[in-house]
């Protein structure tokens, strides 16, 4: 809903005013009470599920933040103070995410929160971060269509993952026919909407696109794999673009392997399959299938080698893998530290204003920059699955790609930009020169 009447806008503005006033009041109270408690340390909130369905992915991110804090403290902390992690477990329960976020900010007085994985958990905590005016670093690739003042998106927007992957398949593998397969929730649906529009703009006909959704945790892939095989036998090179969610991937790939669909016949490019997911399967039948990420463990750079070494030493596991969202946390954490040191304060307003423009080295040898729309610049890599569960990079973008908060492919959002520096607005319409304000 992007077309709001002026009345609505006025209403939402005044509502925002009240909100801001309350938030200010609470902040004042918070700083009064918090002053004596947390003088010696700076608290960092970690909001990742450690139990329930999402624990499989999020536990590693909790460990990553603890590791980064540990490293930073070895260097003397920030502003002469030690960092202290406050870890909570929202248990893969979306309303609980909001509750735990509130607890972190009001009770534990954290200066910043690193957390969330699914989009629905992020949407659940958004009002809390706005109301209490705190900072969230969100490290996972997501569907875009959002730019909030209190959130910094260090994962990929669709134009930093999905679109380059499709470009690669079109140019290098000469793919003419597309299966867009995904789990049935907001990220795959929005991404596929963007991809469908993009493919059509490139002249792909409707009958050459097959869209397929499956429930969470789908385990019986026989019919769908057979359908893909059938769709692929129309005499045109076919590829599968997969937004299938982590857990359902293992049976999906097993079925592909068992039914003998090889990457050289019908390649699958996935946006949610990384080193961590592959750790649970025998990858030999999958060699050649693709994944698009902004980071791979196998990328050779001095930064990456150093990071992997330190991480494996920290976790005391020489086989522990690294993955893309971990790198996003590494970049986000570094940016936050730099911003805090720049303004010599952990005050959220000051840090939020300081963050755009901050640069941090990413692990693949480049330098990522925080943009005014609170997204970052990232390189895009296409990796092929190898027999040992790692990826071999077969293609990368020539330079870093800036993240688009609003997709250029969708009618509803192509005129919108997020700009928290000049326009102080997350959804500024460049055609009408108006800010749509909150609530969209």
């Amino acid at each position, binding site marked *: 809903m992007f077309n709001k009447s002026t009345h609505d806008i006025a209403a939402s503005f005044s509502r925002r005013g009240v909100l801001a006033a309350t938030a200010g009041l609470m902040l004042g109270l918070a700083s009064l009470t918090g002053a004596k408690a947390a003088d010696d340390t700076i608290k960092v909130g970690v909001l990742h599920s*450690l*139990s*329930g*369905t999402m*624990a*499989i992915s999020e*536990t*590693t991110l909790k460990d990553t933040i603890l590791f980064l804090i540990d490293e930073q403290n070895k260097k003397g902390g920030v502003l002469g103070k030690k960092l202290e992690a406050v870890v909570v477990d929202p248990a893969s329960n979306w309303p609980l995410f909001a509750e735990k976020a509130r607890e972190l900010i009001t009770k534990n007085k954290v200066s910043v929160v690193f957390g969330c994985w699914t989009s629905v958990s992020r949407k659940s905590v958004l009002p809390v971060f706005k109301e209490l005016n705190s900072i969230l670093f969100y490290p996972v690739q997501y569907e875009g269509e959002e730019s909030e003042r209190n959130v910094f998106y260090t994962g990929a927007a669709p134009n930093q993952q999905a679109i380059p992957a499709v470009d690669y398949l079109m140019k*290098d*593998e000469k793919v003419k026919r597309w299966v867009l397969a995904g789990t*049935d929730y907001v990220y795959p649906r929005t991404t596929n909407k963007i991809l469908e529009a993009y493919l059509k703009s490139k002249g792909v006909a409707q009958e050459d696109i097959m869209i*397929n*959704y*499956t*429930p969470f*945790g*789908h*385990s*019986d892939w*026989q*019919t*769908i794999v*057979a*359908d893909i*095989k*059938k769709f*692929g*036998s*129309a*005499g*045109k090179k076919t590829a599968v673009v997969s937004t299938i969610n982590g*857990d359902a991937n*293992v*049976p999906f790939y*097993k*079925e592909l*392997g*068992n*039914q*003998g669909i090889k*990457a*050289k*016949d019908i*390649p699958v490019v996935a946006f949610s399959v990384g080193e*961590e*997911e592959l*750790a*649970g*399967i*025998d990858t030999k*039948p999958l060699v*050649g299938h693709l994944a698009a990420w902004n980071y791979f463990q196998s990328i050779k750079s001095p930064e990456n080698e150093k990071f992997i070494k330190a991480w494996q030493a920290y976790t005391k596991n020489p086989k522990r893998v690294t993955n893309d969202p971990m790198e996003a946390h590494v970049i986000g954490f570094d940016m936050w530290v730099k911003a805090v040191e720049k303004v010599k304060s952990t005050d959220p307003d000051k840090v939020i204003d300081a963050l755009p423009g901050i640069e941090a080295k990413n692990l693949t040898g480049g330098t990522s920059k925080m943009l005014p729309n609170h997204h970052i610049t990232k390189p895009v890599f296409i990796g*092929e699955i190898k027999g040992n569960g790692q990826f*071999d990079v*077969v293609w990368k973008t020539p330079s870093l790609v800036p993240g688009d908060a609003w997709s250029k492919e969708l009618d509803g959002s192509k005129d919108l930009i997020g700009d928290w520096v000049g326009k102080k607005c997350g959804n500024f319409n460049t055609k009408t020169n108006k800010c749509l304000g909150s609530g969209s």
Partner: protein
Amino acid sequence: MPAHLSARLCSLALSLFLIAFALPAFAGPFEDAVAKFANDDFSDTEEAIGVIAGSGSKLAFPIINALQNGRLMADPDSKKVYVTDADGKSIDAATGEAVASVPDSATAVRLNNRLRRSVDAALGSLTLQSPDVGTRLQAAQSVFKSHEETALEAVDAALAKEANKSVKAALGEARAAILLFKSDATEVEKLEAVATLKARGDQDALALLTGMGDQPASVTKAAASAIGSIQNSLAVWSMVQNAWYGLSLGSVLLLAAIGLAITFGVMGVINMAHGEMVMIGAYTTFVVQEVIRTRYPGLFDYSLLIAVPLAFLVAGAIGVLIERSIIRFLYGRPLETLLATWGLSLVLQQAVRTMFGPTNREVGNPSWMSGAFELGQITITYNRLWILLFTLAVFAILLAMLRYTALGLEMRAVTQNRRMAASMGIATSRVDALTFGLGSGIAGIAGVALSQIDNVSPNLGQSYIIDSFMVVVFGGVGNLWGTLVGAFTLGIANKFLEPVAGAVLGKIAILVLIILFIQKRPRGLFALKGRAVEA
């Protein structure tokens, strides 16, 4: 191709080469092409494959074969390329001379999907006359897939010499595929090609016929009728395929539900921790495979056979423990049982998560459970087939146990009339514990089988608990045959709905149908009559 064979071919080719050209290195297009492998550039590699495959050199096969197997090493510094074999012997790819060792800076030449296709095509035309039947067949199929004009000569030559019937047929199909796409082939040749592909009648043939582009009118017409007839036969096969998928899904549902048919169906305990017993069985398989991998790698193919009794014992023991410590205090209080077992399921999940970590654990498929075979135009995967057979075996054993053993008799007696059974001298509380243990143990066995097709993660059980209850309730509580019929009905209905409605809607439709059915027949397909129902 087996490694020892390719190694032998390598050395054979090498010695032939050395006899034929006992000359020092000479520069030419072949050597230039070989040096291109060292550039680590996909386009250069592709060019090199083309030149080498067409060079006629005796080294072409060993080089390209090594490339496919990741044994072609290139040194970016010296631009030298080496063919290595499994025994650690290596030769210089440009000259064929044996070298003592490959420098450390050399790395395997990388491939991507496009290159893998060119390698397949090149190897195909190079091995069309291999002495091994399997290799020849594979070669003919590779040529069929790539159908490049350049291979036509090699196919014709091989066809003239070929004696084996199936290889001959495959070569004929490969020839047809090439001719169909060859611009200067005669109309007669093309019509013959269409007929050959029509006889093949599978999806690959369909793909070639639909993608052949501009053709003379008569060929287009013949192709259209061939496409029609192939599509018709494939449509019939797709019904068969759906039925098979339905049976397979039904067997998974049955396997997951069969333990619950005991604990919930026979004992009446609403056991929400049933899924976790399945999960424990899967983790037992993981532990067994870990031990085998580290200590006795030769036993890997037997890992599942070892895991089945172990999973039964582990899950069964935990089941007895749960019954003795929690459930026996809650008989007759279904709501409290439900809450207690649900809480227990969370405890078990978190315990496993703490012990084994939150991420998926790798449980491998033994060789006899990997891959698939073609039956007519459908693909039947071995793991699904074995699970179906395994499920039926478990079901038969359980049925026999309840009917023919003393314990089975006691179980039936206790569930039908507890007081009467007690007064006949049956230790009812012991029977309760054993029955619950049996149900849990069977859930554990199910876990062994499910570890082959699903994630082994702490959440494994959650995804089966709803389906299991659905099957038991739909089939009729307390009736094992009802569970069997219920599982296969739901499986088949689901798989016939899925292609029409999609996976998400299909599942919803099944749920709605079950709700309607339960409204009409609250006791499921096969209702038990008598005291047990009232109790």
